[in-house]
């Protein structure tokens, strides 16, 4: 039996190779066609299509494709069309690094872009520097501004967690209370919240009464709630992952109608419909939003243009399926990053990989990003030294199953002293 299988397996592999070659044909045709006018600028998009980041990755991809279409409709970059070359990184740092190599050495991409999960960014960034491939991440991690990475890695489209958390503290302390209990997942994301918010609320005269770390393997949370001190005025929660619905439901059952104020990061409920059973308990509670999921009464024309371009309704869901809720608080980072890349390439007169260093210098020179169709989330300031953008944040309250913006922070609320100057590093 086995004797006959070897050729069959070979045939399978040969067939796969043939299918692979065939699938590349449309690209070849396109290049041949484009080549007569101008070759496309190839942007390698490291996308979480599988693995734990897939829910985000799907919307990052949709946003990216929409932004690329807008850019191409406007004439492309330096008169050249933009081509998005997407590769699944499996939300895995090893595969992420491999994908960067593929962009640089096989696809011939000009830059790499789009990564969300911090461990994939950190696992890939050393390779970006070694390959001398500009790497624009959309991760909101503090890893870029902390100085951990390198000159080739930039985050110009989304603020980092340190800035976000710090910007929340003044309003929280003034409006919700000063005695806080924090509940967070016991891994790096949760630790960032623990450390940055504790410092920020104390700077506002507040106090963290208890820090309750939930192990990542936990599936039931009831046993943790009795650890919340009675005098707690606000419960600050940032649980993420599939157990978040259980967390909210059990928290509701524990507190009943006598709950303290609740403040959370919408990361917990990105892609989740607020009308989901079990989330009723969140009515009246507050959330950080990177960008308001629900179209507000004072919606800007920029937000409308952005929603229309991606195909999102006023509730932050896909136009074709109201149940398909987007990751609205984060995915604007893809849109804005692509437009920043466009700015950088145009101001540096980018022609090809030999201009990569000029591109990075041009992006480092960008400072102000006014609110616009290109930056629909709000105005921003890019810090060229730390490679990190700073912007406004939104605090929203759940009212009738929707989130209504109650406060927009200032840019200054999110500032902190520089921790690195990447411009001093050589290329």
């Amino acid at each position, binding site marked *: 039996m086995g004797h006959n299988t070897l050729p069959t*397996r070979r045939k399978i592999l040969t067939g796969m190779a043939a299918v*692979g070659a065939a699938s590349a044909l449309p690209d070849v045709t396109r290049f041949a066609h484009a080549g007569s006018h101008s070759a496309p600028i190839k942007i390698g998009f490291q996308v979480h299509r599988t693995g734990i980041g897939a829910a985000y990755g799907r919307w990052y991809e949709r946003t990216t494709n929409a932004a690329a279409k807008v850019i191409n409709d406007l004439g492309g970059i330096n008169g050249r069309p933009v081509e998005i070359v997407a590769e699944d990184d499996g939300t*895995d740092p090893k595969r992420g*690094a491999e994908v960067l190599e593929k962009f640089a050495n096989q696809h011939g991409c000009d830059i790499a872009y789009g990564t969300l999960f*911090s*461990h994939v960014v950190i696992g890939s960034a*050393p390779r970006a520097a070694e390959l001398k491939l500009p790497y624009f991440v959309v991760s909101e991690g503090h890893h870029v501004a902390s100085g951990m990475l390198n000159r080739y890695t930039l985050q110009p489209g989304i603020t980092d967690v340190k800035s976000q958390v710090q910007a929340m503290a003044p309003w929280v302390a003034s409006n919700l209370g000063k005695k806080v209990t924090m509940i967070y997942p016991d*891994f790096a994301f949760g*630790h960032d919240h623990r450390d940055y918010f504790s410092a920020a609320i104390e700077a506002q005269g507040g106090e963290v009464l208890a820090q309750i770390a939930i192990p990542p393997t936990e599936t039931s949370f009831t046993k943790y709630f009795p650890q919340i001190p009675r005098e707690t005025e606000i419960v600050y929660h940032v649980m993420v992952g599939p157990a978040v619905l259980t967390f909210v439901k059990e928290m509701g059952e524990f507190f009943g109608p006598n709950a303290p104020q609740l403040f959370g990061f919408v990361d917990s409920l990105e892609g989740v419909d607020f009308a989901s059973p079990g989330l009723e308990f969140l009515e009246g509670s507050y959330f950080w939003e990177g960008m308001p999921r629900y179209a507000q009464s004072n919606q800007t024309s920029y937000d409308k243009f952005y929603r229309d371009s991606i195909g999102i309704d006023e509730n932050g869901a896909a136009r074709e399926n109201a149940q398909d809720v987007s990751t609205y608080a984060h995915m604007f980072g893809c849109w804005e990053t692509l437009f920043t890349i466009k700015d950088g390439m145009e101001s540096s007169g980018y022609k090809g990989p030999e201009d990569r260093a000029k591109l990075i210098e041009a992006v480092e020179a960008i400072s102000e990003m006014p609110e616009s169709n290109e930056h629909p989330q709000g105005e921003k300031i890019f810090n060229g030294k730390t490679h990190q953008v700073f912007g406004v944040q939104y605090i929203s309250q759940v009212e009738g199953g929707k989130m209504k913006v109650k406060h927009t922070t200032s840019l200054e609320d999110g500032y902190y002293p520089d921790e690195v100057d990447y411009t001093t590093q050589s290329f």
Partner: protein
Amino acid sequence: MRKSLTLHLGLIALLFALQFIAPAYHHGNLARIMVMASFAMGYNIMFGYTGLLSLGHAMFFAVGMYGMGLSATQLGLSIGPAFGVGILSALICSLIVGLLALRTIGVAFMIVTLMFSQTIFLTILYFGGITRGDEGFVIKQSTRQIFGLDLSDATTRYFAALLLFSLVLLGILWLVKSPTGRVLIAIRENEERAKMLGYDVWRHKLAAVVMSGTVSGAAGAAYGVLFGYVGASFSQVPYSIFPLLWVLLGGAGTVIGPFVGTLFMFYLIDLSSTVTDAYMLVVGVILVLLTMFARNGLMGIVRERWAKWLP
């Protein structure tokens, strides 16, 4: 023995030659494949030659990686001694795990190794203050220098990976031909009989665990050094399953099989992901077919049909 030496030295020579002719993308892939194949070869000592099925080998890879990474970043050791600390950490870890886990057999052994591995993963998260938990941390390019050589340079990295791979490959080739290796194979074939013949089975199994864990740890430390990243994802369950898959695909109990399996699996994922988004389905179907029709793995078939001498 001559044929076998020719084959294995020939593979090393081929990989050496590929350094000069492989296109950049495949050149980088081969460096990574050689490191991961070393991990798989370490796994093969336990699984392929001794018959001990571990579901927790990610722990050894991760302990080697973190032993190297933390000693370089926290203690400020240069990369050579840090690499040594990585290997030593994996050796100590495998000795402790072996002493405890070998009190069990069969399914219980699998579960115990799986649990130990989970413990290592959770320990890394628990000490997030220094390990940076699930995010991991970078080994700076300036740290990755040895004897004036920059290990982040593509050529140096390739040769460093080839050196590790060659040492492990030839070391295991020597092991399986040695009296100790013969006893390990005897234990795999019939443990009771080996015991009756007077061999100290427990001690040999412990030696297999320690050798296997140490080699896997060396691969983990090498990955951190050569690719500049240390992260908790390498201690998670998938990285315990991968070496099992690579070894099964390439041929358990063959010296060269783990390399073939790692190479095959890498390009299977890489090529199928260019064809379809559902590449894991393609990979899954092919793995099922291989399991059904090539139970001894690719090199197992070669040994059965054409090269009975294959070690």
